[in-house]
């Protein structure tokens, strides 16, 4: 095989005076930023939707279900293109113009990835709440809690701890999914990967390095949430499938 291995190219200078490893680090920064910001959006919205889908109110359930169906059945890249190229045309003209000209494009990417992930988180939150026995809600109501208070003080604190393993895998997935945002111009890790391949043709080295980067990101997220999981474990509750990733 006549492939020319060259690990030192990472220290070579690029067109813009930086080194190739600078490009990777900058990509890593964007990947982390976009992923974490989207995760925050997804956790907040996903929780609201998940709770909505467990309330006794029919229309709230319907709305939550519709959201999840809509956002789970369209590919992420299509959703991102919708936010970037279609939505600005459909909203009133001045808002559309503002979205195209003034709004930083990474905000749209974060919102797009966040809304996509929210549908998945909503499923987990709903499953967590439904796994609790009805008696917990009744007990709360009997103590004079309002419906909202039974969520706030009784059901959600349990539900989150039960679904934490599932949320962990969503949190790890978001790093991988953030790679798709390159298509709408975010200069994240995959974008840099593609760019470095075009400039240097050192496919194998850069593939190994970028794969390791994604590996590390997912692993760190996994460890952080495993720590949270251990700290918030409900005493006396049998937690199955511990440590199996």
């Amino acid at each position, binding site marked *: 095989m006549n492939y020319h291995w060259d690990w030192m190219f990472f220290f070579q200078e690029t067109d813009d005076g930086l080194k190739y490893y600078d490009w990777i680090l900058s990509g890593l920064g964007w990947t982390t930023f976009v992923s974490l910001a989207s995760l925050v959006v997804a956790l907040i919205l996903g929780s609201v939707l998940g709770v909505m889908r467990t309330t006794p109110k029919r229309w709230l359930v319907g709305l939550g279900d519709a959201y999840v169906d809509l956002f789970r*059945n*369209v*590919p992420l890249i299509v959703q991102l293109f919708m936010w970037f190229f279609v939505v600005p045309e*459909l909203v009133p003209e001045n808002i559309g113009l503002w979205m195209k000209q003034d709004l930083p494009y990474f905000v749209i990417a974060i919102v797009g990835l966040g809304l996509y992930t929210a549908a998945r988180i909503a499923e987990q939150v709903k499953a967590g709440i439904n796994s609790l026995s009805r008696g917990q809600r009744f007990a709360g109501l009997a103590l004079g809690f309002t419906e909202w208070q039974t969520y706030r003080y009784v059901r959600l604190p349990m539900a989150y701890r039960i679904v934490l393993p599932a949320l962990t895998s969503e949190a790890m997935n978001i790093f991988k999914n*953030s790679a798709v945002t390159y298509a709408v111009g975010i200069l994240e890790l995959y974008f840099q990967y593609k760019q470095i391949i075009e400039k240097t043709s050192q496919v194998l080295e850069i*593939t190994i390095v970028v*794969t390791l980067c994604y590996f590390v990101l997912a692993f760190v997220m996994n460890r952080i949430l495993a720590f949270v999981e251990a700290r918030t474990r409900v005493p006396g509750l049998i937690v199955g499938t511990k440590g199996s990733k």
Partner: protein
Amino acid sequence: MSDFDFSVIVQNWAFLAEGLRYTLQVTVTAMIGGILIGTVLALMRLSSITPLQWFAAGYVNIFRSVPLVQVILAFYLILPLVLQMITGKQIPIGAANSAYFTFTIFEAAYYSEIMRSGIQSVPRGQVGAGYALGFTYGQAMRYVVLPQAFRNMLPVLLTQTIILFQDVSLVYAIGATDFFGAADKITQRDLRPVEMYTTVAVVYFIICFTLSRLVKWLQSHIAIIR
């Protein structure tokens, strides 16, 4: 919204349908190939031979921690190098063909995890019962364990296939003309992003929504009564 131009869609429908056909072909190929390889990987992972376990675990964990877009591009570029190494001559593969290979290999990792939990859902005693009847390992798997594992996991396998169907849109990264790629290429030419991307989103939604409802229905009808 008022100037939503349906004629753009009508004019380009043949090209879009061609893209959709490619998307479906990749999906079906990767589903069949992925489930076959995935089942072998799951059996390796559950076997008592340590190197096989390591290989399967490594395969699954690597592919599950890397973004699919990266794998698509990497395989597109690396596959010709590997083929050249084996055959000694340059064989142009092309983006469209390399995607069949990439998706099969990539999805095998995900299908393997599903098959693994399917195999583990079959009570151990049944394998013992198979051996007691004089079955070999292969026979016990073929006639006792795998049919049940497959049946138990059918809804999950199909759900994964719906995800795969959506993920084919990522061949955008190497410029292959799948359904989304077709719409994108028409957009570049006709500058009608609203019509094209909306059409793609709506068609994807209708197909995936219908399929996921079917899976839900199937799930309630094939549960094994024990």
